[in-house]
């Protein structure tokens, strides 16, 4: 016990040295925490936008659909699955989708598009498409002929809200059908895949065009309250839907392109995380090494007075432990508050760099929201504390390895 008190006191006998060492650790953690939470926030946002726009974190669809997407491969009893899914606490909302291929034409030409039937009320709350309307308004459930189109399509077919277009596609029986629709609004998101090739219609309209039954859809997607609970939801749904011809898929399988991109980008991010943790541990090493080595004279005096080397080493280690705890606590506190601030209010890159990110009218969201999770605090704090202790071992053993007489004589 005495040795702990001794360590604590000797820490504050040279207050400046302690403050410098603690602040090294704290600053390092603060910066690393900010960096990692910012990167995590960017990924979470990208995935979240994509899954909200498409078929959720977890998608239920016909087993055959993934191999040969076609509107006759439907999920038969949508409402049953919907109520089943809503009973799972982690599921925030359930998206019912009808996804098909179609060709749209106007007097200015024609292009192939992905036609998506959605529940407009739900979609307005969830999807980035409803947030990024540049002209007109979003579709409503009772829009018998309403259609949302991407800005790329609008440009190429010279369409404006209120104008007509003709959709041509094969329905679920293989029949070629035509349908006249009227543009209600134009959206633009950052991804060309969306603004250049997507159109959205109310579910009822999609069922009419593709001749799909009222309780049928091609996809049922689950939007989760937290992406971390994805596997849990998949397991539950798989158990409940076992035996049927339905597949329960994670978004990584529904959108392999996005998953691939995230993986590569995450890889580069790990490199940066590695570099910053290297810098951080290096700074800790320097300050701790220096602060212990500068105290040779003090240690020599103690040893000369008869302190046992083992006790002295213990004391130095305990001091390091205190420094590590203080530094980690302080760093997590400061870094956590900064990250929390940007988690809540976001960091607006547009205004920061004065680049006219929005002037073109393209709604690439230039605001980054940090993501903070308990696990990040735990592993970063734990890692840095461990590093500090490891680094502290060397000077602790070094602290008693010198010729007492030489050290005491020199200055």
């Amino acid at each position: 016990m005495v040795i702990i008190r001794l360590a604590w006191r000797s820490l504050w006998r040279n207050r400046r040295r302690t403050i410098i060492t603690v602040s090294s650790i704290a600053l390092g953690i603060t910066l690393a925490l900010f960096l990692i939470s910012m990167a995590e926030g960017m990924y979470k946002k990208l995935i979240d936008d994509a899954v909200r726009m498409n078929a959720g974190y977890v998608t239920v669809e016909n087993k055959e659909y993934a191999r040969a997407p076609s509107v006759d491969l439907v999920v038969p009893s949508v409402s049953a699955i919907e109520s089943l899914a809503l009973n799972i606490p982690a599921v925030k909302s359930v998206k019912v989708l009808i996804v098909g291929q179609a060709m749209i034409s106007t007097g200015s030409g024609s292009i192939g598009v992905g036609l998506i039937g959605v529940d407009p009320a739900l979609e307005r709350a969830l999807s980035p498409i409803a947030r990024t309307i540049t002209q007109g308004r979003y579709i409503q459930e009772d829009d018998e002929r309403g259609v949302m189109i991407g800005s790329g399509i609008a440009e190429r077919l010279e369409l404006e809200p209120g104008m007509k277009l003709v959709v041509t596609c094969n329905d679920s029986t293989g029949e070629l059908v035509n349908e006249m629709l009227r543009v209600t609004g134009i959206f633009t998101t950052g991804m060309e895949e969306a603004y250049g090739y997507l159109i959205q219609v109310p579910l009822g309209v999609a069922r009419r065009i593709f001749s799909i039954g009222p309780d049928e859809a091609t996809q049922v997607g689950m939007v989760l309250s937290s992406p971390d609970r994805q596997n849990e939801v998949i397991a539950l749904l798989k158990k409940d839907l076992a035996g049927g011809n339905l597949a329960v898929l994670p978004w990584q399988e529904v959108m392999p392109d996005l998953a691939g991109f995230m993986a590569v980008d995450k890889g580069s991010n790990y490199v940066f995380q590695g570099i910053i943790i290297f810098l951080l541990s290096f700074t800790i090493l320097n300050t701790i090494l220096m602060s212990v080595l500068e105290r040779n004279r003090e240690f020599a005096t103690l040893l000369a007075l008869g302190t046992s080397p083992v006790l002295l080493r213990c004391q130095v280690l305990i001091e390091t432990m205190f420094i590590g705890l203080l530094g980690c606590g302080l760093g997590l506190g400061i870094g956590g508050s900064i990250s929390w601030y940007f988690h809540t209010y976001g960091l607006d890159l547009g205004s920061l760099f004065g680049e006219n990110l929005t002037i073109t009218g393209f709604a690439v969201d230039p605001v980054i929201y940090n993501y903070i999770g308990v696990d990040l605090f735990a592993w970063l704090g734990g890692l840095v504390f461990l590093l500090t202790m490891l680094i502290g071992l060397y000077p602790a053993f070094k602290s008693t390895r010198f010729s007492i007489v030489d050290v005491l004589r020199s200055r």
Partner: protein
Amino acid sequence: MNTMRIAWRNLWRNSRRTGITIVAMSLSTAVLIITYALMLGMMVQMEHSVTDVTVGQVQVHHRNYLKERSLYDTVDGWENILETARRDGIAAAPRAFGFGLLSSGNKSAGVQFWGVDPASEQQIGDMAKNLLKGTYLSGRPSMGVVLGRKLARTLHADVGTELVAVVQASDGSLGNELFHVRGILKSVGENLDRSVAIIDREDFASLFVLPDQYHEIALNSRGQLSPDEVAAKIRSSAGSNEVRTWRQILPGVSDMLNTSSGATMIFLVIFFLAAGLGVLNTLLMATYERIPEFGLLKAIGTSSWRILRDVSAEALVLGILSSILGGIIGTIVSLYFQYFPIDLSAFGEGFNTSGVVISAQWGALLTLRGIIWPIVIMWLVSVLAALYPAAKAARLDPVRALTHV
């Protein structure tokens, strides 16, 4: 000169302390140089992935073409533009565009035909290297066609498949020709994947009855000049045509890259802060530990200014030593990553989003600025960190300084 010699001796009087400081400073400098090069490499690679496939850095069109996409709005005086580009060492590819229908059996699709000169296409971009199957156009009119990946799937076409092209030619007649598939492209962007059929320019000319006319000239200096510089050089000979950089043509992609460079800049600032503060702390500690020594110097009559001068000289020597060491290490490692890119394919395959091909190979890009900035910052930090405690010591009463812990 004397000051420098004293500084040099002083540094080696406590070689361990000096060693730690030099290692700290040079490693931080090296890490910053490497990080800067890696980040720059990533940003430049992303831009190149846009410009170096088909888009090019700058495109020239008839002033109405992008609005109307009419077959008749061709580039005026394209020979002059090609000539200017050749003189300035900029690769230029003339292209003719026309819409039509491609069919095979009972499958058909509306497509945009690109009439290209395969040789100049290979100078401006790497499209020929992005083939999934088959080969690129040979360079002679041979009724071959290269298809986008998704278009090939729609048409159920494979290499060798015969396709019928039906178009409305410029003289109003119906153009009708038989093509066979030579190659299928990898995923290189949504538009190309879905709706583009690439044919030789002479095949295009006879299909559309449009000899020696082009709708677009794509220009690319392959990293020699910036897009704006290329545009400036070309404008003089462009006449009434419209000259636009890729950022003006693809504002969405440009915004996306800007956002991502913005985030990268913030990362960089964090790295500079982390390294700078690390060095600051190490140096502060090193100088603070010497306050009793400064007190001794003062007690035997050294003036405050002299102490400051000596400490600054030491910081300067430390700075020089560490920037040489750090600069060399940083340069070597960065150059290594420039020639042997980091392989991220363990995490996933390369991928394209909105036409930006994210490669799984991540190379660094070392620039002079990327070496100088980290060094300058380290110097500033080291002088600051040394002067502050020294100034404090110089003002301190010698007796207090001597017993200072």
